[in-house]
């Protein structure tokens, strides 16, 4: 039966380096949970500890409340899907899928029935007696998926299962894995470095960096409300600009002066006056206006000149010089009859206060 998983301040050290640093979280029964991060962030190490291939230096892992730290990997009842398939090359498709059932000494009739059911589920029934080398990469990965699911694992573990496939097959298998997982309802821990994959497939995502969980949330909040500078820079395209908090406006929002002199408002209560900070703004959250019509009074203003225009069809990207070494990227929806700026023209940029997020510069990126 599928189960919940608890990671309780798990740490893994290799000599002097800490690969996983006091990570804790709970995964609900039936959840599709993703560990997202670039290589070396500790996500695969964590997954391998859950599978039991390595033992954590400290902390505990629980399946359904039961500590499984000293359960050897072959008794953990997890189904794992590997990046390079790890298909058994000497066994047929059928025997690959039946492997786990045979290790569990199930009856012949049951094995036949269960493997058939799985083959149909991944639509490989016609290839049951082929050898792995006769299959395409996508087919091999579906065999491995079926092999991991047929044992009705407590937890399904996937280590970058799609990264060796071509783009088209990847797109296709993403939705296939997701719909299979929903049908079967198995708790799934999915490791990937592909944020698009993570955002698309997951119920919740843990963004990892240097062995720590930077942020754990549902996909749309990870995107819209990054809590750390790392997440702001890692997920999606973002402008990260140095600046300082000047003071507070009447409505309580912070007034920020960017390096280069531009000012804007941020709907953040946390920032202290006079503090240096890093500001993140998504390119699509910036509106452009005519530089001639400057706002009246003390309304903060941000202006710049267009350095480059990148027409991408569905969107138009403007590279805008705002007086600092790193230019600002503005993304405009590519609509019919849109007014296309010209290179060198001056622009007034406005950003809604709630689209501006402020981070501590020390936090590192």
């Amino acid at each position, binding site marked *: 039966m599928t189960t919940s998983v608890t990671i309780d301040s798990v740490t893994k050290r290799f000599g002097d380096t800490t690969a996983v640093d006091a990570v804790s979280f709970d995964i609900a029964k039936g959840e599709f949970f993703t560990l997202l991060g670039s290589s070396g962030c500790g996500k695969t190490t964590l997954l391998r500890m859950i599978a039991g*291939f390595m033992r954590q230096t400290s902390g505990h892992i629980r399946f359904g409340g039961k500590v499984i730290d000293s359960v050897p*990997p*072959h008794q953990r009842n997890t189904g794992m899907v590997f990046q*390079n398939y*790890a298909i058994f*090359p000497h066994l047929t498709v059928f025997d690959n899928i039946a492997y786990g059932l045979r*290790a569990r000494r199930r009856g012949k009739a049951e094995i036949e029935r269960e493997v058939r059911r799985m083959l149909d589920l991944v639509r490989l029934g016609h290839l049951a007696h082929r050898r792995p080398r006769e299959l395409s990469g996508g087919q091999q990965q579906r065999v491995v998926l079926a092999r991991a699911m047929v*044992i009705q694992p407590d937890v399904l573990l996937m280590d970058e299962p799609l990264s060796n496939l071509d783009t088209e097959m990847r797109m296709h298998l993403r939705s296939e894995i997701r719909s299979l997982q929903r049908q079967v309802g198995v708790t799934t821990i999915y490791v990937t470095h592909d944020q698009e994959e993570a955002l698309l497939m997951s119920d919740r995502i843990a963004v990892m960096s240097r062995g720590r969980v930077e942020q754990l949330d549902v996909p749309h909040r990870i995107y819209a409300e990054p809590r750390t500078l790392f997440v702001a820079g890692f997920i999606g395209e973002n402008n990260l600009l140095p600046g300082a908090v000047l003071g507070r406006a009447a409505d309580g929002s912070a007034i920020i002066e960017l390096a280069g002199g531009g000012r804007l408002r941020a709907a953040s209560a946390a920032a202290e006056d006079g503090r240096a900070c890093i500001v993140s703004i998504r390119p699509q959250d910036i509106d452009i206006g005519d530089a001639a019509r400057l706002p009246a009074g003390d309304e903060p203003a941000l202006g710049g000149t267009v350095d480059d225009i990148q027409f991408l069809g569905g969107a138009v990207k403007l590279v805008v010089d705002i007086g600092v070494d790193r230019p600002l990227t503005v993304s405009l929806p590519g609509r019919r009859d849109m007014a296309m700026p010209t290179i060198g023209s001056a622009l007034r940029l406005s950003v809604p206060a709630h689209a501006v997020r402020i981070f501590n510069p020390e936090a590192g990126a």
Partner: protein
Amino acid sequence: MSTATRRDPTGRLGAALGHLFDFWPMVTVAALVVTTALLLLPVYNIVGLSFSGAEAGRSLFDNYAMFFSEPYYYRSLINSFIVSISATILALLVGIPAAYFVSRYNLWARSLIKTVVVLTFVSPPFIGSYSWVILLGRSGVLTRFFAEFGIALPSIYGAPGIIFVFTLQYFPFVFLLVSSGLKSIDQSVEDAARNLGSGEFATFVKVIAPLLLPSITTAGLLVFVAAFTDLGTPLILGEKFRVLPLLIYGEFVNDFGGEPVLASTLSVLLLAVTTAALLLQRWLSARFSHATTAIRPLTLQEPRPLKRILAASYVYLLMAIAVLPLANIVISSFLKANGPVLTAELSLDNYRRIAGTVSRPLWNTILFTSTATLACAVAGTLIAYIIVRRPGRISALLDTIVMFSYAVPGIVLGVGLVVTYHYPPFALTGTALILIMAYFIRRLPFSVRASVSALQQLSRDTEEASVNLGAGPAATFARVTVPLLSMAILSGVLLTWSNTIRELSATLILQSGSTATVSIEIFNEVVNGNFGVASALGSILILLTFLPLILLFTLMGKNEEALV
């Protein structure tokens, strides 16, 4: 949380003891016990015996002092160095150009050349020696032939003869290693040198040869060790010229029944030299390793006709000389023999004469070889798995012990095993078991090395997938690892078989009449001057050696470089 961080000492100890009876810890302990019993203990015992002077009330170094003060003894060490170093240099001089020509020039019959190299390489060294006696001995075929024209050929006996036979016997080491070294050099390297203005010879000396240094030094040291430890050739050709292995054998036979103190002392000296040579080889190949892999290996050239003819003549002449002793054995086995003199009359006489007596040694040979080979395959794969998949201090120790077995010459191992297992409760001397033990431990490092390199190429994920699906460590090894390694294991089995079947030096020490092998029978017939019978037995042994290799090359698609 608080209960989790608290340590429970009895629980930890219990867990550790519990893990001891897991599959891999048990295999590790067994491997350590077996290698200790078959290798470390025998070596420890001969070292102990060599220092036993103190027990007799003399100096601890008494035996060594005697060795280095008596010319009869220390002269043999010098002789060993003379023949081994000369053979090494000659083998390099002969082998490097041959390998270069065959690898680079589009010579005729290249695959035939490679077959000859393989034949020479795997043929039993002592067979080559006595074959040369048939050809160039005092009443040798060629000696008498040239004597009729008044030409006196140089003697095959003594140092020059030994060096000559060693060179021919061991140049294939150089040929095979240099050929495989040449394969790892990218064509662009040569092109660049030529483009910058070097001629072919200058390119070889300045660019190709330095890149080949790891292969050349390895080959050189392997030739040296093989020549330094060979017993059969000096036994047949040495006459009054004594080398160290010969002395060990002589002293061992003299001391038999008593403690082979002197044989042990000489063995320790021999072991010291081979160990030093192999350590030097490891250090040199690490130092000179350029770790290049060729994307586009050196291509085959079409040299100018004169160059091609000269290169071809050199290679063909070398191959003709190398294959001559083997051809001679096979041919003379079908000639009517009159004592040591072979007549020109074709007959099956020799085979008829061995028909009644050959079955026992033949059966012994096949039984001992097959048992040792199977043991090697099983133990080699298990130990390789521990070394590759379970790294740690104990696994590194096991690796070192197994690799030490490379350094222990057959004759030294033979003496060590007798010293260790001669007395009750073992009393194994003269049994089949002690021979199988010797063959097993001698070939174990080769089996381990073959499985190690196959395992390193095997992704760990496949085994982890099996464990993840619920198969325990032993089941995973049996159902996934072994099937995936099966080709490597099988080719290891064929190589081990072919190498073990011709073993002579350890066998000479360890056999008794009832456990004599075909090698021993050949040796006895040679000593008794029955060259015809020896040739018939020799032909059978050559066939047995070569059969598994034919399987290896044809069915398994391996090439001759698998041999080194």
